[in-house]
């Protein structure tokens, strides 16, 4: 074979070290940029609190744990929004679907089901969860059908949907807040009880590391089988090391955040544990909503990159006409993408109402804007065809970091919104600049 093999990690020794590292590991430079921005935000806020308050408040286990929990709802929906935007559509109704689903869940588990099953029946949370997902998916399927088969622009369908479902949410509850929800259901919101503790967290971290290594090994074996160029061994090792470091680092952080003193004391009293000097340290571990968001991210990444459905979504987004001519049923794909988006809005509806332990008709208001912002900051192009799930998750983390950082610093909420707006426009501006330059070069 000739020496000019494509896509190969051929790095000439004269290149600077970083570029050689990037090329050999085939890591997306855009992702590096996003993680860099995230690191900058985190360190910036931490340094600011060190200077102003005398102690760093941002990079603490407690704040990072909370940050992850707060990100999960928007993160879940951003995963779905990636596919919607990749298909050159938009969904402005996700916040309203979230609110509507939460009121349905609330009414069902507080007013309806206890009449038949009795309070505290263990089936309640499962029935309401499935109901919430089904309602979300059904609404998404309706929106998708209107877009695909009647040809109404997605902007209009989902704008109308936003008004309609927000109004419906009010009708369901007549404006009341429904609380408290089922105890088991509320675990989906996180909190000390809605977290998995130290042992399970370490186990998960370990499993993640094993998964990373197995994934790299399987990929390498596939390349060997087809005689494709291989990454150098040191590059594989670097990727594995970074992956394991992140997995274990995150686990260490969430395990370093103890249960609040009073909750721990109550627990000790109930279980006849003697509280030692200086309080009882019960590690919180990963919160359930965070694990749900990670699970959604993994499943969605798999769907987007490894299945026919995902390939068709990206191909239709890149060139809808070509996709039709290749025999792809793009209308069906559109319906499926919106259905998936509705389903994920249902998941977020469960997470948020569980977290507040109540259901109201205003839940998730304006959240569609943060979901779209997270997706776009995460590198999804509004022109269609381009976008990654992990990018959207990092985008969600960036937005949430900015917001919770500004809350820590005591900024006005008006000011917070202004900053998020500027960051959104700035990030997309930078990205457009970068893209237009790399397209020419």
């Amino acid at each position: 074979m000739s020496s000019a093999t494509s896509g190969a990690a051929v790095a000439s020794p004269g290149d600077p070290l970083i570029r050689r590292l990037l090329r050999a590991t085939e890591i997306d430079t855009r992702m590096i940029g996003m993680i860099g921005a995230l690191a900058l935000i985190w360190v910036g806020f931490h340094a600011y609190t060190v200077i102003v308050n005398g102690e760093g408040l941002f990079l603490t286990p407690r704040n990072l744990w909370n940050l992850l929990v707060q990100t999960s709802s928007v993160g879940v929906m951003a995963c779905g929004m990636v596919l919607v935007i990749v298909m050159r559509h938009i969904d402005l109704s996700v916040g309203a679907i979230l609110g509507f689903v939460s009121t349905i869940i609330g009414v069902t588990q507080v007013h309806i089901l206890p009449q038949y099953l009795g309070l505290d029946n263990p089936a309640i949370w499962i029935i309401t969860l499935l109901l919430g997902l089904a309602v979300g998916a059904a609404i998404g399927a309706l929106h998708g059908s209107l877009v695909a088969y009647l040809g109404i622009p997605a902007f209009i369908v989902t704008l109308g949907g936003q008004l309609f479902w927000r109004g419906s949410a009010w009708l369901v509850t007549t404006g009341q807040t429904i609380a408290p929800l089922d105890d088991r259901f509320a675990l989906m919101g996180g909190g000390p009880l809605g977290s998995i503790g130290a042992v399970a967290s370490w186990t998960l971290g370990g499993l993640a590391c094993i998964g990373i290594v197995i994934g790299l090994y399987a990929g390498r074996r596939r390349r060997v089988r087809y005689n494709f160029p291989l990454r150098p061994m040191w590059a594989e090792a670097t990727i594995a090391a970074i992956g394991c470091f992140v997995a274990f680092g995150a686990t260490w952080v969430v395990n370093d955040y103890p249960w609040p003193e009073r909750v721990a004391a109550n627990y000790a009293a109930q279980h006849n544990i003697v509280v030692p000097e200086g309080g009882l340290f019960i590690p919180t571990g990963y919160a359930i909503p965070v694990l749900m968001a990670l699970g959604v991210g993994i499943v969605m990444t798999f769907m987007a990159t490894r299945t026919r459905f995902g390939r068709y979504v990206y191909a239709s987004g890149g060139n809808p006409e070509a996709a039709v001519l290749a025999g792809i049923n793009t209308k069906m794909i559109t319906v499926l993408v919106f259905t998936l988006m509705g389903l994920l809005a249902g998941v977020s509806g469960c997470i948020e109402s569980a977290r507040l332990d109540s259901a109201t008709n205003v839940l998730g208001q304006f959240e569609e804007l943060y979901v779209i912002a997270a997706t776009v900051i995460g590198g999804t192009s509004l022109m269609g065809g381009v976008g990654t799930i992990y990018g959207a998750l990092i985008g969600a983390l960036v937005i949430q970091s900015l917001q919770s950082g500004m809350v820590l610093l005591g900024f006005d909420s008006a000011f917070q919104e202004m900053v998020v707006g500027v960051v959104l426009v700035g990030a997309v501006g930078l990205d457009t600049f970068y893209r237009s330059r790399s397209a020419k070069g």
Partner: protein
Amino acid sequence: MEASGNTPLVELKDISLAFGGLKAVDRASLDLYPGEVVGLLGHNGAGKSCLIKVLSGAYKRDEGHIFIKGQEATINNPRDAKHYGIETIYQTLALADNVDAASNLYLGREILTKWGTLDDSAMESQARKVMARLNPNFHRFKDPVITLSGGQRQSVAIARAIHFNAQILIMDEPTAALGPQETAQVGELIMQLKSEGIGIFLISHDIHDVFDLADRVAVMKNGQIVGTGRVGDLTKDEVLGMIILGKCPPGATPGPGAVASN
């Protein structure tokens, strides 16, 4: 199955297609034999592309019948057409710009692993084999096709058409976006495919191209066939007369679109 010399590979009979009041194709009939290249000529808007899109399943005909190897065929969408071994290379190439060459090659017909997931490695490996035959200089398998040159994109489109045992190949202006060298390459390829017994419809408004490559020509005007004839029996001027005036010369068989000549 070997089609006999007398059974046409494709026979289009009285095909009509209208958009609203506009008759894009009007009672057009055309046939194609194995190992033959039929050039379809005509002005922009003469109905060439529309007629051929009926065969490739992109448009649904209003009237008429399609016979493949003597059997009536039901073609309602591109998937049906592919089922009959009809592959099309569109003028616009119809590639999904944002995905790589292998994914485009297999778009709509992906290779799956035993778990039902995409087998990208197998697809890339196959793509490397096909491209090695078509265009040995092609190495950019991992890049989105939008970053490729016109000729490279054309090779991807052609590879996609011939990789799946096409028996009938439709090429809509295959050389419109190409330089002279790449045009010559496409010409060689057409000759190679022809020798393999594949029937080819070549749509073009470049009369020289068609005279170089085709065995027969068919000329369309205002949605109707003016006439068909063997390339050897016609001069370029006569064919130009068919295209511009709709006048069918003695060497050609007149169709419904021929102007009555005195």
